[in-house]
């Protein structure tokens, strides 16, 4: 029995190494100077750990950090609430064509949003909408509509009796949704919020195109750092520090909510 448990621990530790290695690698290299890295010392321990790369990364990205928060927080809030509402209706109020809507959402979930870039640019111009944070938020909320699928799957597991009982108590649709359904959706919310926060925080193409230079989200700014063509010189240490810097909020979300993530999934997000 002891042997079996040690074996399990050994296996799990081996995989922990696979999963932890890249982050450790980035952290170590972000503490090196760019000269040290250009000598090819990627794997070595930093000769003289320094924070210059982190400072440079903060100079490059700091400004866009706030932009990203201003973008991600409203998008995540709005899109997950909307998804909960749509998912609920789609699941519990079958109507003619609801299967079609389901397929429509499913297909939409599969397509890269890059496909929509050009028509979107033209339409926004024709609507007289310039680049602004509000527009970018609206775009992301629209392209997050397929999230409703996650809620729909959750609600499939809801007993109708519960809803009917509430109905008998005289609750209207909104009361039903707000007082009964939403509180019971907490687990899915945890999952969707985490997935969505990561997605929005990390999206860069729309962030680049639909914002002005000083309003760019952090990942657009991050992509800027790495993208030097023929003729430019890359500072790998700054790139690593910047990558970590940009990932801090999502890492923090996982650190804080990671426990709820599994718990959320346990509580029923996977039913369906």
């Amino acid at each position: 029995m002891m042997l079996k448990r040690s074996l399990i621990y050994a296996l799990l530790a081996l995989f922990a190494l696979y999963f932890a290695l890249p982050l450790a690698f980035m952290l170590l290299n972000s503490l090196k100077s760019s000269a040290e890295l250009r000598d090819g010392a990627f794997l070595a321990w930093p000769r003289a750990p320094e924070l210059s790369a982190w400072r440079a990364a903060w100079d490059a990205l700091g400004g866009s950090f706030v932009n990203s928060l201003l973008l991600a927080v409203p998008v995540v809030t709005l899109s997950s609430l909307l998804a909960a509402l749509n998912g609920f209706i789609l699941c519990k109020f079958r109507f003619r064509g609801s299967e079609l809507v389901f397929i429509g959402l499913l297909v939409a979930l599969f397509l890269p949003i890059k496909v929509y870039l050009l028509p979107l640019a033209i339409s926004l111009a024709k609507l007289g909408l310039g680049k602004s944070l509000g527009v970018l938020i609206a775009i992301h909320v629209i392209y997050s509509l397929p999230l409703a699928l996650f809620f729909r799957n959750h609600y499939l597991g809801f007993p109708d009796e519960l809803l009917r009982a509430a109905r008998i108590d005289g609750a209207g649709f909104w009361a039903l949704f707000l007082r009964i359904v939403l509180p019971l959706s907490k687990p899915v919310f945890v999952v969707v919020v985490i997935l969505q926060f990561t997605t929005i925080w990390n999206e860069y193409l729309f962030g680049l195109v639909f914002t002005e230079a000083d309003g760019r989200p952090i990942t657009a700014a991050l992509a800027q750092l790495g993208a030097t063509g023929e003729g430019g010189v890359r500072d790998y240490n700054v790139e690593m520090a910047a990558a970590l810097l940009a990932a801090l909020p999502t890492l923090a979300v996982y650190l804080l909510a990671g426990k709820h993530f599994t718990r959320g999934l346990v509580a029923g997000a996977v039913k369906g």
Partner: protein
Amino acid sequence: MRCLSPRATGLPALLSMLLLLAPPTLRAQPLDFLHWWTAGSEAQTLAELRRTALAAGVRWQESPVAGAGNANTLLKTRFLSGNPPALAQLDKAVSVWGEVVPLADLSGVAEAQRWGQVLPPEIARELRFRGKVAAVPINVHRLNTLWSNRALLQRHGLAVPRSWDEFFAVADKLQAAGVLPLAIGGSAGQKFSVFANVVLGQGGADFFQRALVQRDAALIGGPQMLGMLRDFKRIKRYTDAGQAGRDWSVATALVIQGRAAMQFTGDWANGEFQKAGLSAGRDFECSPAPGHGGEGSAGLHYFEFDRILFFQPANAKQADEQRRLAAALMQREASTRFARLKGGIPVRSDAELGGFNACARQSSADFRSGTRVLALGAQLPEASYGAIRDVVSAFWASDKMTAEQAQARLIKAARVVD
């Protein structure tokens, strides 16, 4: 703008309604410059540009986007959304944009400053679209340079190869001695410049123009091209597996540190050698690629040039500002300053070369008196160039593709027009 907005016919009803709703938004007033000069020496060039613009009394604004790909995507969407910049960095032929959007007319400035006399004809021609000047050149980059570590070559009793035969002999000896003969970066561009060096070095400028620019099927499908493809592929043997994803500057560092003997890349490498405290002619050599002349005769000069494209101004005031900016950028001193900051050499043939090192001076001499060949990417439509480059990089990468197969694919790629 009329040519841009898709006509409603044939478009889905919902969308056409949207498209017809509102007029395009008005262009922002200051001269907005869209560019991807975001790193290192490029940032210095940009600062100089900003100073020049402000000194010329121009209302100035910048839209920086790193990466040519990102910048071009943004430029497109800005045109589609009716909010185009007044200026943009250009990495393709002027005509590519000229065909689809209205450009500025700087012909007056060009005439007053006699651009036709101070610029080589290859460059002057590339600034025009339908007879009107619409772009301003910043500097010239030489692409066909062989950079080598002098000490390393000497230690093995070798000299810088002047022909492709010599190159292979030198590379064989180095390899036998356990030295990496050639450092190369991971990008498709790095491989393509090796290919261009082989074609130019073995076939000459005329062959290059007829085979690759005019895409003469007989030449592309001929025995000479087959031999070139074989030699191109043979060069891969002298490179290492570490090239995947390697930055060109990391490859240059290998030469600087003596871990590799040679590298083919553009003259941006010059700055890396100088930064490392190496001096041209003593520690490292910069010579034209094998078979490209030099050594007594003037060398062949395979080049591209940085330029700024001017789009149709929004109003008379902006037109005036564009003209003033163009004139300021082409002033002899300003133009030389840009080249010194950005690397490469000045575009003007009357520029003073004080402050440029031996490599730049050699490049400039070859540029003025040698045979000039404009980079293939600047001469072909993007689709055609891309298709040819795909074949070259796939052939380089593949252990299975034969030279004959590569040639067959090259013939096919040469037929791609749009």
